[in-house]
């Protein structure tokens, strides 16, 4: 592995990008496949580019540098009764905010109000020529210019290096309840997920373990309302309320991906609830593979016991850890994607979109 640069300011970050012909940004390394690129790329770490630069609770916005740990942001928001509703993942593993954007993965809470893409408002990024550019805005509503901040979500450092981001936040619900609902098989589970999605309860999270005949549901609401909602759901679907400790442990495991094989490959696949049974069948063909379904059937995560990801994937996804293509599954190559890559990175300083 080649040198690691550790810029301590956004200007130094831009200079670091300009300093080498091949560059890849790295955060805490919790999604290692994203930065597993050609050996001659200089690694630019965001570890010294950390901290919340602006936080206005009354505006529902904050701005933070790229390497700010998600954990730190969660604590600062929590002090003011606010949160990022999409539950940025791997907080305990030290993951950074820019890493979350580059990976484009969300935690269980993304079900209620949307994912990271729905809360990012603005970015400062360093393009392939080393220019520091600002797009989007710092207010909750802005329609000026193209939505480059959204484009960067899931871009894995291939289009630019994120220096700073502005996010929208919401007030945190005052009370939480978690339920375990029965679902005899993956087909019944699919029906249950659809019904939960159409219901009146405004659920916060809906997740399940592939192969387990249960669905986990989280509610976030005022204390005075929450038990009536939980009771109605259980009256309709059966199930039970989880104890506080058990609930905390389950959601921690989900958001930290502790259930994955620590030394095995791990990938994300966008799905629809109707894909559930086929996804479960596919996972079962890989001995030792573990999988979870999140966002009421809209995403599947798989972890294999070995570092080699499955060679053939029926869905297009992103490999977060392990060996194999960054984007497993059917390709959807467009001429315009290459053209936009060239617009932001004309000299190919960052890895290609398909590397």
């Amino acid at each position: 592995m080649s040198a690691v640069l550790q810029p301590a300011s956004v200007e130094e970050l831009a200079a670091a990008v300009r300093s080498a012909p091949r560059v890849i940004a790295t955060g805490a390394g919790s999604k290692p496949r994203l930065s597993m690129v050609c050996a001659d790329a200089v690694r630019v770490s965001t570890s010294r580019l950390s901290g919340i630069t602006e936080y206005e609770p009354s505006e529902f916005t904050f701005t933070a540098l790229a390497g700010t740990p998600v954990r730190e942001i969660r604590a600062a928001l929590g002090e003011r009764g606010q949160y990022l509703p999409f539950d940025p993942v791997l907080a305990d593993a030290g993951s950074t905010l820019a890493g979350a954007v580059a990976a484009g993965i969300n935690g269980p809470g993304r079900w209620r109000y949307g994912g990271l893409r729905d809360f990012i408002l603005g970015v400062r990024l360093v393009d392939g020529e080393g220019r520091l550019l600002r797009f989007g805005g710092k207010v909750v509503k802005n329609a000026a210019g193209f939505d480059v901040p959204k484009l960067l979500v899931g871009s894995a450092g291939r289009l630019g290096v994120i220096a700073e981001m502005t996010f929208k936040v919401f007030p945190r619900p005052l009370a939480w309840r978690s339920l375990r609902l029965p679902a005899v098989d993956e087909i019944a589970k699919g029906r249950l997920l659809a019904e939960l999605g159409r219901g009146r309860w405004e659920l916060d999270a809906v997740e399940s373990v592939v192969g387990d005949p249960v669905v986990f549901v989280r509610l976030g609401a005022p204390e005075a309302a929450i038990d009536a909602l939980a009771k109605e759901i259980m009256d309709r679907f059966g199930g039970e309320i989880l104890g506080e400790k058990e609930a905390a442990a389950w959601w921690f495991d989900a958001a930290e991906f502790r259930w994955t094989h620590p030394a095995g490959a791990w990938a994300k696949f966008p799905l629809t609830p109707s894909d559930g049974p086929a996804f479960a069948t596919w996972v079962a063909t890989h001995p030792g593979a573990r999988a979870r379904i999140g966002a009421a059937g809209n995403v599947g995560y798989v972890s294999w016991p070995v570092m080699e990801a499955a060679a053939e994937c029926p869905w297009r996804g992103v490999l977060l850890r392990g060996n194999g293509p960054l984007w497993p599954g059917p390709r959807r190559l467009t001429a315009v994607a290459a053209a936009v890559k060239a617009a932001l990175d004309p000299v190919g300083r960052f890895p290609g979109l398909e590397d």
Partner: protein
Amino acid sequence: MTRPEPSPALRRLAAVVPAGRILDGPAQLAAYESDALTAFQTRPLAIVVPETQEEVVALVRFCHAEGLPFVARGSGTSLSGGSLPVAGGIVIALNRLNRIRRIDLDQRIAVVEPGVVNSAVTAAVQAHGLHYAPDPSSQLICTIGGNVAFNAGGAHCLKYGMTSNHVLGLKAVLATGEVVEFGGASREQAGPDWTGLFVGNEGLFGVALEITLQLLPRAECFHTVLAGYATLEQAGDAVAAIVASGLLPGAIEIMEKLALEAATAAVHAEYPPGCEAVLIVELEGPREVVAADRARLDALLAASRPVEVRPARDAAERLAIWKGRKSAFSAVGRLSPDFIVQDGVVPRRRLGEALRLINGWSREMGVRCANVFHAGDGNLHPLILYDGREPGALLRAEELAGRILRMCVEMGGSITGEHGVGVEKRDYLPAMFAAEEIACLKRIRSAFDPKGIANPGKMFPEKGAPALVHAGLHPLEKAGVISRE
């Protein structure tokens, strides 16, 4: 009147689409000269009215081959001149591509063509307890294609976001003729968010052919309150208190006195007497949640020194509150022959300061200004009144509009919250972005449209302004069919 010979480009165009799709009579061209920003007018070469996606693809490929500019258009309700035609170019009117291709109730999505009217999406699914959340005031006639191009907002953006937060995927023909599919039926994605980049492109990338929309369960219960205040500052303080309390209302709106008078005259809305400002707050969600939140909201409002608080007691009263709010803009049209709507955003905590500045300038310049705004997200909609027949009046109104836009940027906000830059605000883009940022946006545009044929003249500053004329209300606005918000 004899019609001139069709131009060679027009003759070749006739071979691209079936007969009867091209409109080029003087009366037909005149009907498309403007959108809802009637101060700008440009006569296009022709209007083409395709009926299928294949025809749209063929048209765009023809335009690419010929280097012929095109403007895709839905119902023409843009408030920023976003669908203003290009002289010598064609307008692709997408109104006949108005099929809802698929509704999936389990996945809660609708796949629609660009000419589908915003409110038609909700109409198609409301029997199943679902709705399409973005609700621009023109939702009875504006189209999803236009909503996507300009990332339309509405009164419920604080909680639900804009159009881009509800578009899961789309199929589009780019200005190069390439047909692409971004995103899909899932709420999750892998790879760069191309869908997110496309929404809000202001027609500069190409034409969306099919759009996958997320549908939400309709809120079970609403609690809508109208509170009148003796001063605007008190209304502003009430907003701050609500936001600080941890409540997340679906909508928080403020109307100032001049707008209240207009709504009273136009739709017989009734407001508490002696108020300088009225605040509208709407809670929504499961009935138990609304009941719990309502107790907190009522206490906050009672402590905010209102002249009067009027909760809507039933659905009819709720609709009456919203009717007054949503009619405010066209109602203001009765107070003045002409007006300009602005759309800037300021940080919420600086709303009071922003309004004091606007009102000060308004007095100083002798230009009347009625303020209506989405207080929850700091999105101002000052209506600047003028009489275009009076010499210099339009210029004074534009001067005030310019001051307001610069103020929004200086306060750390934006020149546009939901109307887009379009033609109207393109000269203000450099107030928000540095030269090299605009250069980068232009390079992205060129990646989608190397020849610069898709809706040229919008978003980016250009030499030579389109004709600015005094025009009065849009005919549909006079008829009360559309309104500006």
